[in-house]
C-alpha cells in the first residue's frame, strides 16, 4: 500500500508527527486511546526481564520476533569483554540471553561486532528509518526521532505489551515545534543547542507533546547531531522529538545492513519524501530560537534544565522568582558543592566521561580527538572514552582515534552505557566532579555522591586538558 502520507486524512494540513502517528493507528475512536502499531522494538537487559516473565506466566509468545532486537549495554563492563564481576549484573545479562533464546529474539551480546548502546545500534544497522514507530524500555529512545520517526521510551509493562501484541495504546499527543533559525556559530554543537533549549523550557516544558525540531540550524546538523538533539527530548519532558527526513537522512540510511534495496529503496524514498509538515499545519505550541545567539553551554545543577553558558557564572538562587525553584536551585548548589557567582570556567573536574547514547558516536569521538590531539589530559584528571558501540569503536580504531586518546593519557574502553548511569563499575566516587557528554546530571546518577556537569564532546575534551571546565578556544 504505497499511499503517500498526506493522503491519510483528506486535505487538512498535517504536521510530520501527525502523519507518522496516523499511519500507525490500528484502532481509534471510542473511549480507549489510539492503538499504535510498533515498527521496531529494541530490548536491553535492564527493563525486559519482568516483561518476558509476564509473557511466560500468561503463556504468550513474542508476536513479531522479526520486529524485535536486543543488545546488552546498561550493565556491561567496559574494561574487558567477558568478565562481569558483579553477580547481579551477570544474572541480568544471562537472563536476557536466556529469554532471547527461549522466545526467538535476535540478540547482540558482549563480544559481538554489533553490540553496543541500544540507541547507537539501531541506526547503525539501518533498522531505524524514517516514518517509523520505535519503542524501547529506555527513555532515550527519542534518539531515533532524528530520522523522522516517532520514537519514545516505555516502561516494563509496556515492553510486555509490545512483545505480546506489537502495538501500544497511546493517548493522542499534542504537537510542538522548536524552530531554530539561522546557523549555529562556529564551535557550537548540537549538544550546546539542546542544553540551551532545556534551560529555557525546564524539565517539564515538553510534557505531553511530540516535538518537531526544524529550521536552518537543524537542517544543517549532521544525522549524528540530530540524534543528539532528539536524544535529550525526554530531558525536557517531551513525549518524543523528531526531525523531518531529508537527503542527509536518506544518504545515512542507504547501504546499511537493513536498508531497503533496489525497488524497495525507491518505494521507501518516495514515501519518505512526503514526511514533512504541510504548509499551514498548526502546532499546539512553538518555540523559536535564534541560533546566532548561542554559545557552548554546560550545566551547573542537578537537572538538565539547570544550565548556563560556559562563559557564564554559577547562578544565584536568590535571583529566581519562584519559591520552589529557589529551594531546588539552592539544594542543587549544595549537592554540587558550588558557590553562586563562580565563573563556570573556574570549576575544576576530576573525571571526564566521553560516551553515551547522547554523544558516543563516531563524530563525537572525532570532535573530541581533534581537540585533544597532541595535548595531554591534565594531571589528576581521569578521562574515560567509551564508544557507543563495538562498531563505533572499530571505526575509531581504523581512523587512529584510539591512539590519539591513549597518547593524551585517556582511558580507552569497550562499548556500553558505562558512566552515563553507573550500573557497571564505571562510577564516580562521592564528591568527585565530572564533565560528562551524557544526558543526566541528577544526584548520584553517575555514582553515589558524584557531581555531574553535562557538556558537549568538544568541551569535554578541552576540559580534560585544562583540568577545569573549558572550551577548545580556551586551550
Amino acid at each position, binding site marked *: 500500500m504505497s499511499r503517500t502520507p498526506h493522503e491519510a486524512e483528506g486535505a487538512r494540513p498535517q504536521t510530520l508527527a501527525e502523519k507518522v502517528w496516523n499511519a500507525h493507528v490500528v484502532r481509534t475512536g471510542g473511549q480507549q486511546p489510539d492503538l499504535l*502499531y510498533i515498527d521496531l522494538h529494541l530490548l536491553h537487559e535492564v*527493563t525486559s526481564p519482568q516483561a518476558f516473565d509476564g509473557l511466560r506466566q500468561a503463556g504468550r509468545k513474542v508476536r513479531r520476533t522479526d520486529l524485535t532486537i536486543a543488545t546488552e549495554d546498561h550493565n556491561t563492563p567496559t574494561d574487558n569483554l567477558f568478565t562481569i564481576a558483579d553477580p547481579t549484573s551477570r544474572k541480568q545479562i544471562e537472563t536476557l540471553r536466556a529469554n532471547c533464546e527461549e522466545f526467538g529474539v535476535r540478540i547482540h551480546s558482549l563480544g559481538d561486532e554489533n553490540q553496543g548502546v541500544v540507541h547507537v545500534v539501531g541506526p547503525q544497522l539501518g*533498522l531505524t528509518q524514517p516514518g517509523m514507530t520505535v519503542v524501547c524500555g529506555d527513555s532515550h529512545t527519542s534518539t531515533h526521532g532524528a530520522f523522522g520517526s516517532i520514537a519514545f521510551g516505555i*516502561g516494563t509493562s509496556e515492553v510486555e505489551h509490545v512483545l*505480546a*501484541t506489537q502495538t501500544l495504546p497511546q493517548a493522542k499527543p499534542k504537537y510542538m515545534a522548536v524552530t531554530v533559525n539561522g546557523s549555529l556559530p562556529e564551535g557550537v554543537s548540537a549538544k550546546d543547542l539542546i542544553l540551551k533549549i532545556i534551560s529555557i523550557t525546564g524539565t517539564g516544558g515538553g510534557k505531553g507533546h511530540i516535538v518537531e525540531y526544524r529550521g536552518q540550524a537543524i537542517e544543517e546538523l549532521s544525522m549524528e547531531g540530530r540524534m543528539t538533539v532528539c536524544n535529550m527530548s525526554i530531558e525536557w519532558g517531551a513525549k518524543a522529538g523528531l526531525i523531518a527526513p531529508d537527503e542527509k537522512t536518506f544518504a545515512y540510511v542507504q547501504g546499511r545492513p537493513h536498508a531497503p534495496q533496489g525497488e524497495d529503496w525507491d518505494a521507501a524514498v518516495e514515501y519518505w519524501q512526503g514526511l514533512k509538515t504541510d504548509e499551514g499545519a498548526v502546532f499546539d505550541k512553538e518555540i523559536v530560537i535564534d541560533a546566532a545567539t548561542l554559545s557552548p553551554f554546560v550545566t551547573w545543577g542537578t537537572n538538565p534544565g539547570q544550565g548556563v553558558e560556559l562563559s557564564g557564572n554559577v547562578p544565584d538562587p536568590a535571583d529566581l522568582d519562584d519559591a520552589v525553584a529557589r*529551594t531546588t536551585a539552592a539544594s542543587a548548589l549544595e549537592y554540587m558543592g558550588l558557590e553562586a557567582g563562580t565563573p563556570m570556567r573556574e570549576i575544576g573536574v576530576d573525571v571526564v566521561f566521553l560516551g553515551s547514547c547522547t554523544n558516543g558516536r563516531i563524530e563525537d569521538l572525532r570532535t573530541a580527538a581533534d581537540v585533544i590531539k597532541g595535548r595531554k589530559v591534565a594531571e589528576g584528571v581521569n578521562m574515560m572514552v567509551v564508544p557507543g558501540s563495538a562498531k563505533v569503536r572499530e571505526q575509531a580504531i581504523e581512523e587512529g582515534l584510539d591512539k590519539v586518546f591513549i597518547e593524551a593519557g585517556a582511558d580507552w574502553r569497550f562499548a556500553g552505557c558505562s558512566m552515563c548511569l553507573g550500573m557497571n563499575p564505571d562510577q564516580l566516587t562521592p564528591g568527585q566532579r565530572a564533565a560528562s557528554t551524557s544526558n543526566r546530571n541528577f544526584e548520584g546518577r553517575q555514582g553515589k555522591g558524584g557531581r555531574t556537569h553535562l557538556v558537549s564532546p568538544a568541551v569535554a575534551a578541552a576540559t580534560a586538558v585544562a583540568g577545569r571546565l573549558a572550551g577548545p578556544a580556551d586551550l
Partner: protein
Amino acid sequence: MDKFTTHTGRVAPLRRSNVDTDQIIPAVYLKRVTKTGFEDALFAEWREDEKFLLNQDEYKSATILVAGTEFGTGSSREHAVWALKDYGFKAVIAPRFGDIFRGNSLKNGLLTVELPEAAVEELWHLAEVNPDAEVTVDLEACEVRAGDRTWAFEFDEFLRWRMMEGLDDVALTLRDEDKIAAFESNRDAWRPRTLPAAA
C-alpha cells in the same frame, strides 16, 4: 493489576520538585529480574540521611506521598513504581508527573493524582502540623479529601475505568487481534525486519 477505588491514609510531605526516577531508585538497584523486593531501594541515597522524611517515626506509616512538581521525570525505569509500591505507598500526589512514570504507575495500581501547587502546599502543611491526619484519595469520586477540605482532580475516563477494574492491558488489546492482523497484512513490504540478520 491491583484494583484501586479509594484509599485513606497518612501523608508523607516531600517538599521537593524535580524528583527524578534516579532519586526514587538509583540505577544500582535495577539489577533484579523480579518485580518485587524493591522496598529498600526507594529513595536509597536520601534514606541514608537520618533526617530524611521517611526516616522520621511520624511518617513511617504514611501511604500517600505528596511531592513537588515534575515528580518521576527522567529514566523510564518501572522499578521506581515498584519501589514506591513495595515500600507501602498507595498513591502519589504532585502538581505534575513525568509522562512515562505516570503511565507506569497506572499500570501497577499506584494512583498518581495531579493537584495544583496550592493544594499540594496545603497538604504539606497539614501533614507537617499533624502527621496523623488522614487523607482520602477517592478515584471513584475523583476527589482528594482531608478534614473539611476537598479537592477535585481530573482523570482520564478510560484510565480510571481500567484502574478501578484492575484490568490487564494486554488482554484488552488482544480483543482487537483481528484489527492488528489486518493492519499487518497492509504494511509496506520495504519496512525493515530484524530477522533474518542482514549480512
